[in-house]
């Protein structure tokens, strides 16, 4: 029921379609079940010697046509509803991923989030919606069949009703035992898959050291374990169908025996009221079969429904995650003249302070460099400035307006950034460079690539600028960084953030890039986090961070003369 509540918002816009589907289901099942009833009547008439059964044949033909039409409409309607619901769910989840705080994405495995968008929603569709469809249709079928059976003979109907749960019970018993085997099987498959993944990731090392044979041995062992558990799971599961069939046949036999007794000893069963006929027995044989089918189908669907429930919860969890609201409304003005950090305090976990009282004035046109050892909080400053995270106390001010009061969208439109973690969207190199400026001409794109020293290697690729790339594509990290740099060169943003943007680019190219960067940054505000200190010698102001505090600041010459932490760091890099 709780799960239904979670599912309902996606179904409710189509509630009238669901009502229509229900009507189709009732109509389709009614006409379907009327046919055996009419058959029984016709048989009885033939047994009396009256062979003119045209009336029944026409009625049956009518039922048949309506049955076919309504069945098709029902199937189509459930599929329509299901797929519309799935689309809504996917769109909602995608929106949620677009709106959750960056901290949420950082705290989760990316693969895990992606599985929710792709596989989990598939599971919801397969299990819950198809399963619910089976349930829906099944209930209608059971009710309609019961009505027909009781109208024929209550004692036989009662027998069928009492016996049917055996079949459900048997398949239930089998599947509950199976779930243990299935768990073991998927655990073993996981291990096997990890081994294959590790081999693929380390393939060069494996070939270099001739380890393939050992790897194959290890794979063989895991494969054997998988074979054993998989066999158990598979064989155990394959009991369900034959076992339920056996039970069904038994019930079929019981109906014959009881039906025959009713016919042979009508006096003993006179308390049942209506006299029993062979035609009724024929109808019953069909009904007893039809009555059981939905039970078995629902039992079959149960495993998938269970998967679907887990999946639904995982999807729902993301969708109901607190959104990263964009509450700001104060306009910042056309140009950011002044950027200021006022006594910023920040911690990711609320315990260990990462930024501890950070204040800084950034004037328009200045190049500010952030320097410090790993984990000193440099990247966090960028996260706070872009408002990927919000500080607990203090904050950045643009034109004397707290950035928390400015719409994130507006704030970010003033800034262009290149991060150490290069990200390329799946698409052509051309689209990637033009990411921030989709209307750029090809000449502009090539010019930007040339400035970023990326043009050379791009031309060497099979499809040049049309080569399709992605974050995990075959380009080297350095090459990807160059493409990200080209993005900024094209965009020419007002404020530039570089977070170790050239950390994977060789020195010579980096040096050549420096000129292009100087030109880009001319007259613009820039904040640079640098790994190689030589690249920030010409910064207007260098901030040295340690444990979230500013420990030194000044220009390069001042800091070197001071001979403090910065000078030590600088010399260590050259040693």
């Amino acid at each position, binding site marked *: 029921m709780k799960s239904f509540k979670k599912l309902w918002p996606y179904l409710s816009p189509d509630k009238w379609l669901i009502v229509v589907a229900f009507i189709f289901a009732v109509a389709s099942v009614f006409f379907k079940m009327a046919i055996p009833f009419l058959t029984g009547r016709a048989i009885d008439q033939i047994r009396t010697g009256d062979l003119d059964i045209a009336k029944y044949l026409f009625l049956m033909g009518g039922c048949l046509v309506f049955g076919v039409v309504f069945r098709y409409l029902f199937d189509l309607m459930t599929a329509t509803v299901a797929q519309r619901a799935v689309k809504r769910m996917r769109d909602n989840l995608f929106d949620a991923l677009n709106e959750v705080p960056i901290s949420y994405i950082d705290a989760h495995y990316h693969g895990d989030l992606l599985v929710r968008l792709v596989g989990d929603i598939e599971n919801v569709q397969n299990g819950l919606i198809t399963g619910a469809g089976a349930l829906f249709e099944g209930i209608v079928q059971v009710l309609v069949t019961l009505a027909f059976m009781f109208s024929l003979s209550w004692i036989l109907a009662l027998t069928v009703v009492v016996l049917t749960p055996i079949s459900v019970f048997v398949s239930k018993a089998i599947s509950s035992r199976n779930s243990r085997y299935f768990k073991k099987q998927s655990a073993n498959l996981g291990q096997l898959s990890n081994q294959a993944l590790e081999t693929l990731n380390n393939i060069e090392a494996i070939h270099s050291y001739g380890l393939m044979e050992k790897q194959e041995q290890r794979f063989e062992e895991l494969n054997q374990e998988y074979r054993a558990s998989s066999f158990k799971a598979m064989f155990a599961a394959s009991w369900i169908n034959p076992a339920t069939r056996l039970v069904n046949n038994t019930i079929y036999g019981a109906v014959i025996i009881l039906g025959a007794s009713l016919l042979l000893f009508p006096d003993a069963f006179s308390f049942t009221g209506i006299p029993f006929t062979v035609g009724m027995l024929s109808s019953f044989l069909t009904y007893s079969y039809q009555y059981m089918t939905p039970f078995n189908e629902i039992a079959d669907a149960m495993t998938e429904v269970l998967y679907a429930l887990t999946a639904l919860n995982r999807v729902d969890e993301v969708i109901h995650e607190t959104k990263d609201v964009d509450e700001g409304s104060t306009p910042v003005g056309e140009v950011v003249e002044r950027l200021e950090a006022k006594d910023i305090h920040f911690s990711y976990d609320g315990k260990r302070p990462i930024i501890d009282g950070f204040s800084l004035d950034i004037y328009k046109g200045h190049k500010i460099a952030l320097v410090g050892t790993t984990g000193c909080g440099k990247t966090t400053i960028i996260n706070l400035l872009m408002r990927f995270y919000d500080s607990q106390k203090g904050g950045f001010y643009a034109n004397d307006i707290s950035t928390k009061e400015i719409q994130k969208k507006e704030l970010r439109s003033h800034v262009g950034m290149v991060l150490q973690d290069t990200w390329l969207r799946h698409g052509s190199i051309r689209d990637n460079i033009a990411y921030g400026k989709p209307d750029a001409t090809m000449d502009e794109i090539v010019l930007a690539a040339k400035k970023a020293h990326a043009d050379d290697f791009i031309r060497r690729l099979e499809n040049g600028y049309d080569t399709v790339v992605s974050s995990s594509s075959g380009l080297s990290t350095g*090459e990807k960084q160059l493409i990200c740099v080209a993005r900024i060169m094209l965009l020419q943003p007002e404020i530039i953030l570089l977070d170790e943007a050239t950390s994977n680019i060789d020195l010579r190219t980096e040096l050549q890039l420096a000129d292009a960067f100087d030109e880009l940054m001319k007259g613009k505000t820039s904040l640079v986090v640098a790994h190689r200190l030589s690249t920030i010698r010409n910064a207007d102001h260098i901030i040295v961070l340690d444990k979230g505090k500013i420990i030194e600041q000044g220009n390069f010459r001042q800091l070197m003369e001071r001979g403090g932490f910065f000078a030590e760091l600088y010399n260590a890099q050259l040693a």
Partner: protein
Amino acid sequence: MMTTLQPLKKNAAKVIFAPMLKAIECTCELIIPFLVRSIIDDGLTTGGSHEGDGGYVLGLCGIVFGLSVLGFLCTMITQYMASKVATEFSFDLKRNLYSHIGKLSPSQLDRYGKSKALNLVNTASFSLQTGVQMFMRLLIRAPFLVIGSIIAAFVVNVYAGLVILGALALCAGVIGTIVRFTPREYTALMNELDAISVLGDDLIVGSRVVRAFNKQEESRKEFREESERYRKQALRLSRINAFINPLTFGFVNLAIVLVLYLGSFQYQSTGISVGSIVALISFLTQSLNALIQFTRLITSFSKAFADRKRCDAFFAIEPDIVDGPLAEEPVIQDGETLYELKNVSVSFGGESTALDKVNVRIPKGSSIGVIGGTGSGKSTLVSLFSRFMDPVEGEVRFRGHNIKDSKVGAVRKEIALVSQKPQLFKGTIRENLTLGEAYSEQEIEKALKDALAYDFVYAKEAGLESKVEEGGSNFSGGQKQRLLIARALLSNREVLILDDATSALDYKSDLLVRQQIKKRTGMTTILVSQRATSIKDCDYIYVLDAGKIVGEGKHEQLLENCLIYREIFQAQVKQQ
């Protein structure tokens, strides 16, 4: 060439025998309606041969039950064999896939797609396993029951037989047509799903950039268009599939109407008795159910079929790096040519080449430096030495003969390669260093010391037995590189190749490691770097730029003659 289904051959007998047992079950099911006919016509009808004989009716019911049990037993044997053969098959298939992965060169795997290859081992083999099992236990059931029912119907009455033949043929026709169309639609649907996955991946991995560039609205729109395409395609598939149930239902019931009609005017003349009508209806419903069950299998089968094609395509990739005929490598002395690249070109198919007519000579025992910028072709050059790829033009000579004449393993076992990728295995530090070979503690300690890894390894409580996570994720970049260098030194091979392997080390550590390596005499070392200081002491240096060798010689010569070398060097010196 290996094929996907090859492993099934050894179980061919079982693959055929199991469905035959299944046929017994079907036969039992086909006999039951005849028994019901006898019960009705002989036992329950006035004038029947056993009219009113309760014992007769009960006896026949007993036979019905007996046949059900017999059918059940036969089925269970089939199920057992099917599960056995299917898991056995999947076991062999996985082994074949895995060993094929090992046979292909890294660049072939890159081109094929590593995640695709992984999917073959994970998902494809499972869907094929299910496919084989389904094939053995269910595939024969539908055709056997259908054909059996038709024959049985003919036994009852020729006209009835014709009616049932017609109805079931129409059903089979409907199912057949739909089956022909669905796989294509299903593949199209999977492609849309892939597109959804790509968009999702971009959004999750690129969350910062998407937001920084204010692209949320755009990505949202893009996704909505894609999810709409997916929905439409899914609906297309459903629209086709939705024909199965109503049409088969329609044909079967049409046949029932016709049988009744036949019964009504043939009742006296040809003797389609009431019992026969009931039996015929049973045949029809049984066959219909079998056919419907069959259609449910189709999704599994079309998946297995598509996966079989994918596996076959994977097996069809011929390893491009294969052993040569040479049984034994010639012995060469220090100073003689170990490697020689003659006019070697490598291309990935682009406008310009990755390596362009490169000539390199590496004497045994020397130290060679290779320097160049990002994308200059250094790593491609290194791949040639380990024979991870072959040139498209020119020749790589190893110990005086074409490297293609050597056994691949014979070349690789001479080389200790430290590549840019931090390739560490899940396990312990010791396992990652020794890689299963036996070394003394002293040897291990020496390698660790030379690679400047000793201190941080022994600073850990468990020392050598400390855990290493997948890909060495619990170590910093510099620590990983030191472990990799220690591993290479420990292997004590003739040739040491460091491909930008000290990039995460500070300059001082870089220098110390190089000094330790230099002490190991007799070893040929190939140092590839972006830093001029790392290679300036090498016996001979090659300067690569845009795939071409633009300078070669000793450090001092290059400073004088090679503009690019000078620029690289000065870029570093400028720092100082």
